[in-house]
């Protein structure tokens, strides 16, 4: 059932139009599928295969390479606790231990109310160590109490975070009248602003 719905299909067409070759749109489209369902469903991958003109196996191949694509539901809130070197030095292992104790589930397991945690590699907030991301939104200098505050907030709705799968809330939109157009591989003409175009030999004939 979870193929892309009509609204998302329109977004998908828009994304596809920005690449000289369709397959380049695959990672953005996988994100779109994950945004719709919270994870990347098999049916969605088949749909994407049709859209970019490759086999479903090729879509699966790309999908499984990347950490962010989940092929099973991970709950509404995925909490990624950084255990990179800077966070490790400032207590990430202890924080992950606390998080597991506090939620009552191990890394990767989803609680009944849709929260899961995972120790992840460096998420680029090293000076704010130890840090975590909830659905890829940062929380800095996290203490054990801070973690509990976050989880309670997610549960009672005082902390609002878009559901798992939704990344940037703003999408890029290239207005049709302003688009320069894709640089197609087949077109071998120099760009219009290039000063010394080789004189085309055909003209001499």
């Amino acid at each position, binding site marked *: 059932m979870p193929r892309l719905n009509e609204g998302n299909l329109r977004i998908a067409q828009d994304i596809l139009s*920005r690449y*000289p*070759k369709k397959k*380049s*749109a695959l*990672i*953005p489209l*996988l*994100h779109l599928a994950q945004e719709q369902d919270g994870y990347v469903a098999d049916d969605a991958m088949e749909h994407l295969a049709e859209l970019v003109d*490759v086999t479903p196996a090729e879509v699966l*191949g*790309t999908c499984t*390479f*990347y950490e*962010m694509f989940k092929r099973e539901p991970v709950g509404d809130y995925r909490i*990624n606790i950084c*255990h*990179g*070197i*800077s966070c*490790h*030095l*400032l*207590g990430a292992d*202890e924080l992950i231990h606390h998080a597991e104790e506090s939620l009552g589930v191990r890394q990767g397991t989803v609680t009944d109310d849709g929260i899961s945690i995972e120790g992840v*590699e*460096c*998420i*680029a907030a*090293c*000076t*704010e*160590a130890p840090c975590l991301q909830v*659905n*890829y939104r940062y929380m800095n200098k996290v203490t054990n109490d801070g973690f509990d505050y976050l989880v309670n907030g997610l549960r009672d709705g005082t902390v609002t975070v878009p559901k798992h799968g939704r*990344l*940037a*809330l*703003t*999408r*890029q939109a*290239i*207005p049709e*009248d*302003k*688009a*320069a*157009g*894709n*640089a*197609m*591989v087949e077109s*071998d*003409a*120099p*760009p*219009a*602003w*290039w*000063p010394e175009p080789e004189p085309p030999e055909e003209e001499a004939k």
Partner: protein
Amino acid sequence: MPFEKIVTQRFDNLEAHKISEYEATGGYVALRKALETTPEAVHNEVKAASLLGRGGAGFPAGIKWGFCPPNVWPRYLVVNGDESEPGTYKDRQLLERDPHQIIEGCLLACYAVGLTQCFLYIRGEMAHAQERVATALNEAYAAGYVGKNILGTDFSVDIVLHWGAGAYIVGEETALIESLEGNRGMPRLKPPFFPAAVGLYGQPTIVNNVETLANLPWIVDRGSNAYTAMGAENSKGTRVFAVSGHVNNPGVFEVEFGTTTFRDLIEGSDYAAGVRNGKKIKAFIPGGASAIWFYEEHLDLPLEKVTVDKAGSMLGSGAIVVMDEDTDMVKACHNLVRFFARESCGKCTPCREGTTWLERILARIIAGHGRPSDLSLLTEVCENISPGMAWPPRQTTICPLGPSAVSPIASSIERFRSEFDDYITLSDRRVIPVASA
């Protein structure tokens, strides 16, 4: 010494991500200037500034641009914003706080080298940066800075925001291109060594780091002479360093390239303000997880590419991680190696198998199941990934990820061998807590 900040000049301005604020603080002036001159003039200016690539390898950007074969079209620009080296987070700051500066940098590069489409590849986990850049691009399109006939000239280029999905290896430029083509992000076999010859879709492609491009508006606006007036002989301009770990004031700092020392940065009151709790420094990583560790005796080295290379390490991605005297070096080493083991793409056997085994051996040492032969076994596995364990590393792999995993092991075994021995031999080993807050 006082100097002018370049890429972080708008960091104090919390509104700088908006186009009106960017324009009000000198934004898009360089683009107008560039459009009045020839692409060649812009290229020459960047070459004269000897701007070094800020991604890690430190290759001069102007020279890299020159590797495009003549008269082969179209050419592409791919912006490497897939920052994920442990300890590094300068690019995320640049993208979030001053996205228009990056966009202007992209436009200047496209104009100078004749690149007709730009893909801005941002790391998947950076939702906020994606949001800021998407908004900035929409503003820039509306204002006529990006797209068709930019500012009424013949210059036309689309900038497409693209984001990844969590893979460190995609920071390697040929892997980045594979990923952008919708494939698994595995590095391509070399030669060709530079995507400038054969890159995206087999076409000439320039891959530049976010910080590299952020320097361009300033260079084009103020001229290469003003740029080369700052810095040391082989490292011009300024550079952004992120200092993290056991320091009082971790942060991202822009300093004059080449003249500032590690001591200034780690101990200076304007910067990281020394090791916390009055502890002594035990070791520090000078340039991201891939770098050989430095110690107290290296503190007075200048932050300058050639000097640091000669001293046996690298400035890499500008990530300095400080470890204090209480740090458990075996655990720190395991942590770094685990990163490379998890992030190995699996293409080359020495890296795929080697990093995995290194991680397992270190894990069993920490768990108390280490064997007396484990240290020589670690060395042997390292030798198979990076023969000689020398610096700069030799490699049996396509890309430098595998050899990077050797760095923390070579460093820690050489300097802190007794800590490994304690784990392996002592029955009553005192477990040192990682964080003693």
